């Protein structure tokens, strides 16, 4: 099978399944999503093998090349995030099949499956797209399906969170689109490979870059534009929270990386990068401190996301320094391992909240004895979130630290250390409650289906495995990397 066919199938398959699940309705959604998730794992593995063997590739869809057609681009950055989507997506699909099977969740479940399949389509299309306007369309597909999924619970708080998310992220998308319009007006193309050759640090190039950057940091919830994230991520059903925190934010970050390092490398400036990195450092501190102060488990994990997003912005300053490759690797390593760990944490918390009936951690005293697997999964996810060895989070933060240190940026080098310490505090606070002696003799803890207990653990283990198996992911990341100086990009 050629790369062309694999890339096309990755987009067409979930899209067709989404339409089928919507049209057929009833109970057809879960089996379709399971089939798509399995196929996706295979297709992404094939794509990764092909990229590792032959390097970055351009797929001319339907044989129409740019500028007339819209190209897909397959490189290490895209394939790594596709792999994260495939792994986390398979976990979420299995978990959701059990989660929405409970009485009382079935009607939400019927609406969930078509939206979830659409979301998978949007992820695959985003990470393969080679065109700035196409990225806008996939981003909107992602946003609109996410809005529907946040509102699934149907309560006032969930509806309000969904509306707020819709308004804020649509404004962000339109800022991005205005940047795309200026780009087309100035350069006559929106293919980011072609834009890179034409863009210059003049007024129009700077305006386009600034508009896109602001729009995308709103969508990525970078401090201080994070205000919409905690309600949206905490009110959604558990599988949806896992996807929103683990994957959706990575899609807008991915577009920002494409814009900043692939389309407009001639326009970016050290000062702009330092501003983004400064906001990232502030996000790490602010998000972590707020996470420590929360008393609902889902809000703790949501604020942890605000913090972890901050690390991913350090690269914008470090890329201008002496060791950009280390920063690039560290950032993407963190993006992928955080996707697994954060999904594991939200799913484990979702299982515990379902068992106890609330996610107020004051009510969680002593439940570790009743639900050891979920608590262990949460703790293991915490190992990656705080960046302890041997997790993927440790490798990522080590790379970022090395990059900052070799660049002499000691302020930025401190950020992963302080953030890691605070992450250990907020995770241990939850775990400690579950281990403490219960107030009453009887602990209220309903049994949970096996899938809902073991899937979080599997995802937490995947995040740990990222710290053990490092050769292939790092090799993959250098393919098509803007900093792999010796390897000239193929386009």
């Amino acid at each position, binding site marked *: 099978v050629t790369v062309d066919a694999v890339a096309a199938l990755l987009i067409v398959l979930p899209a067709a399944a989404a339409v089928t699940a919507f049209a057929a309705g009833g109970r057809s959604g879960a089996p379709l999503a399971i089939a798509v998730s399995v196929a996706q794992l295979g297709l992404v593995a094939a794509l990764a093998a092909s990229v590792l063997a032959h390097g970055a590739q351009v797929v001319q869809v339907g044989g129409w090349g740019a500028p007339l057609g819209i190209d897909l681009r397959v490189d290490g950055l895209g394939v790594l995030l596709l792999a994260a989507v495939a792994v986390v997506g398979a976990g979420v699909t299995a978990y959701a099949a059990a989660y929405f099977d409970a009485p009382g969740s079935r009607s939400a479940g019927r609406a969930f499956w078509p939206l979830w399949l659409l979301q998978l389509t949007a992820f695959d299309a985003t990470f393969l797209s080679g065109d700035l306007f196409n990225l806008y369309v996939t981003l909107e597909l992602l946003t609109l399906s996410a*809005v529907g999924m946040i509102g699934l619970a149907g309560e006032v708080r969930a509806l309000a969170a969904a509306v707020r998310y819709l308004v804020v992220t649509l404004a962000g998308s339109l800022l991005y689109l205005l940047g795309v319009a200026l780009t*087309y*007006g100035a350069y006559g193309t929106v293919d980011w490979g072609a834009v890179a050759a034409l863009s210059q640090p003049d007024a129009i190039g700077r305006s386009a870059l600034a508009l896109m950057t602001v729009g995308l940091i709103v969508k990525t919830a970078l401090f201080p534009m994070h205000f919409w994230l905690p309600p949206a991520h905490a009110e959604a059903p558990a599988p949806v929270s896992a996807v929103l925190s683990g994957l959706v934010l990575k899609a807008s970050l991915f577009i920002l990386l494409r814009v900043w390092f692939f389309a407009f490398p001639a326009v970016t400036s050290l000062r702009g990068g330092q501003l983004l990195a400064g906001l990232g450092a502030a996000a790490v501190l602010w998000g972590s401190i707020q996470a420590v102060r929360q008393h609902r488990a889902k809000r703790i994990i949501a604020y942890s996301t605000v913090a972890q997003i901050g690390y991913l912005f350090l690269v914008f300053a470090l890329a201008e320094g002496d060791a950009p490759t280390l920063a690039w690797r560290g950032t993407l390593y963190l993006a992928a391992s955080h996707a697994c760990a954060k999904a594991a944490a939200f799913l484990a918390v979702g299982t515990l909240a379902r068992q106890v009936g609330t996610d107020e951690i004051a009510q969680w005293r002593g439940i570790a004895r009743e639900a050891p697997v979920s608590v262990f999964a949460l703790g293991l996810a915490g190992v990656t979130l705080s960046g302890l060895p041997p997790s993927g989070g440790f490798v990522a933060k080590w790379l970022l630290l090395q990059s900052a240190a070799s660049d002499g940026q000691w302020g930025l080098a401190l950020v992963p250390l302080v953030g890691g310490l605070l992450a250990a505090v907020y995770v241990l606070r939850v775990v400690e409650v579950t281990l403490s002696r219960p107030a009453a003799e009887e602990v209220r803890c309903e049994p949970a289906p096996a899938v809902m207990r073991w899937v979080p653990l599997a995802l937490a283990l995947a995040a740990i495995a990222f710290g053990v198996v490092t050769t292939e992911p790092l090799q993959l990341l250098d393919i098509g990397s803007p900093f792999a100086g010796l390897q000239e990009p193929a386009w």
Partner: protein
Amino acid sequence: VTDPRLFAVCGVVLFGMGLYEVVVAGHLVRRLIALNLMSAGVFLVLVTLGSSSGGPTPGVSSGGPTPGVSSGGPTPGSPGDPVPHAMVLTGLVVSISATALGLTLVRRLHAETGHAQLPDVPTDMP
């Protein structure tokens, strides 16, 4: 002939007015209308920049097959360039879908709470 850049500036002004209203408005329907104003502004910029002779170097000249140029057809930046029109049409579809979804959610919120405003200002308090 009017300078097409005038329309582009109008588009940016519309966009700014919409953005201001999205931030300050309380009523959710007003905010949705303001979002549509922003879209209209972007579309105006796209169409006018597409039809001005504007860009310094069309992207197609950077190499690769250039069917439009070689056949003497419309080039990017020329009045007949269809690409911005296609983008605007795509953008309209997205905008209409998003507005419909937003209005549905606002109606649900109105039915549940009796008003069409976000219930609280989100704060970082626990």
